[in-house]
């Protein structure tokens, strides 16, 4: 009698877990749970634990990455409802100056300035851009590009809000840990918050607007008010980042309206892969440390970001995240065939 041959076949975990759609999961074993949770939990755990092990300069990089990450997430939310922003620096700067002004002139504590600047910045930006959401994407991009410049020029010409010198000597965070963890926790919260927002029915409507706005209108939904709502959420996220950076550096100046804050998040989203929040987050976690490494390049850094951006748009249309996601989904285990 022949020796029984052990037959094996490869099994993709993905296929067993996802039934019918991306949103309906069938989880049958601890392995499945691990498969689903690992890509979500592990990176977050690393991000949360990293500041405990690295200090000084490196934790600054982490903070910076989270700030850019928030801007990129905010950009991605706008993009998912068809609004294409070239002016993340607008939202960022408005938040930064709001927090700075409240601190400097009204002497409000941090736990007031940051929330008020977050919501107030969101509301102000939504109000400013509300007339533009009726127009084609190119207009929105143009106007968002120009508004930060307008703000900068007004502050310079009128000499308000500290004029060219900016607002300095602002209140710092009470301790270093609060400073670091506030931004990291905010980043993680916003990432997962927006992810669940976009998969909810509310988010579905936003995505549908980007897909075909006339069909959405004929379904009885006021697309303009939905766009303004998305604008408010996105601008609030970015304003929070601005308010944070004001207290982080204890300074608010022109630099918050600089093009860097518009290009870097955009490049991060493009590199990580547009169309997913995780892509935008991943992109900023890759790009910011990289740009710190390029610090020695000085003035050339912007040119390099732009080159990366062009490269990402032309050569990596799906982005790094989608690539990794696909590879992960192709992950196979070997099982015995009985």
């Amino acid at each position: 009698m022949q020796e029984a041959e052990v037959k094996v076949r490869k099994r993709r975990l993905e296929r067993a877990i996802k039934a019918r759609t991306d949103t309906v999961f069938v989880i049958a074993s601890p392995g499945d749970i691990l498969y689903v949770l690992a890509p979500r939990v592990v990176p977050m755990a690393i991000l949360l634990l990293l500041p405990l092990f690295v200090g000084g300069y490196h934790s600054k990089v982490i903070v910076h990455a989270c700030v850019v990450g928030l801007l990129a997430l905010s950009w991605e939310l706008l993009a998912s409802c068809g609004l294409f922003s070239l002016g993340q620096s607008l939202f960022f700067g408005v938040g930064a100056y709001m927090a700075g002004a409240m601190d400097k002139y009204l002497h409000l504590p941090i736990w007031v300035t940051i929330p008020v600047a977050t919501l107030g910045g969101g509301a102000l930006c939504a109000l400013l851009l509300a007339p533009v959401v009726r127009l084609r994407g190119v207009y929105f991009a143009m106007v968002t590009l120009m508004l930060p410049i307008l703000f900068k020029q007004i502050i310079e010409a009128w000499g308000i809000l500290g004029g060219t010198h900016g607002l300095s000597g602002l209140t710092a965070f009470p301790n270093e840990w609060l400073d670091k963890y506030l931004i990291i926790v905010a980043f993680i919260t916003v990432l997962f918050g927006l992810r669940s927002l976009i998969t909810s029915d509310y988010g579905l409507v936003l995505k549908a607007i980007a897909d075909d706005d006339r069909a959405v209108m004929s379904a009885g939904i006021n697309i303009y008010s939905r766009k303004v709502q998305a604008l408010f959420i996105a601008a609030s996220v970015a304003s929070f980042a601005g308010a944070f950076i004001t207290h982080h550096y204890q300074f608010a100046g022109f630099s918050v309206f600089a093009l860097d804050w518009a290009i870097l998040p955009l490049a991060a989203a493009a590199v990580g892969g547009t169309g997913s929040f995780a892509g935008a987050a991943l992109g900023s976690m890759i790009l910011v440390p990289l740009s710190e490494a390029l610090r020695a390049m000085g003035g050339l850094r912007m040119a390099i970001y732009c080159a990366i951006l062009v490269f990402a748009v032309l050569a990596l249309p799906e982005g790094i995240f989608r690539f990794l996601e696909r590879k992960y989904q192709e992950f196979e285990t070997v099982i015995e065939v009985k």
Partner: protein
Amino acid sequence: MSAETLLKVEGLGKSFGGVMAVSNVDFELKRGDFLGVIGPNGAGKTTLVNLITGFVKPSRGKVIFNGKDITGRKPYDIANMGVARTFQMVRLFHNMPAYKNLIIPLCSQRVRKLRGGKYGERDDVAIDLLDDMGFERTSNVPYKTAGSLPHGYLKRLDLARALALRPDLLILDELFSGMSMAEVAGVLPIIEKLNTQGLTTIMIEHRLRELFRVVDRVMVLNFGVKIAEGSPDQVMDSDEVKKAYLGVDVEIPRGKPA
């Protein structure tokens, strides 16, 4: 009750750069009516739909729906009042699973109001609706990405999207174009049934045989002008219609034999 006027169109006109796409069209619909609109290509049928549903602003005239003047209102306002439409070129959300397409109208103010806040799971409502349209719930068709479905399904999905709004007036803009005979045969009874249940319907169609089977009344447009209105047989007997629409001496399909 049955004589209540639902839609009244008065002297409606639209010119695109001097060309009158629709001029001076009047008609009236009572609740539960089934009106067919026919006419050669370029007769202004789709423009008429766009004018009623607010996608194009009229140059002149009035549209009164349910006693309210809706002329020039925004498309979403008009939709929320209960006018649903399908599109000649289907407009769907191609990247979403088919059933998710129906979530959008289910999120509208109108549906929320009609269901009194308690609408249950939108996904379930969507699947039920699709099941009625022939997307069998036990198959994986309702879960497939809309863009990957064949044309006939897309047309039906578009119809389901319009119906999800629970409209008072349904406007079908060439629903049957590109559908196979079998598909038409599947959808036609659904529309007929909805109409007998009291849904007022306007149907724009090139397939006269199918159209005449279901409608009570037909309106004929040519070069944006209404040239005839009446029962299918009446309209087809009119010389003007023969000339304009079919050319003279053409065999005309008759309404359903008794």
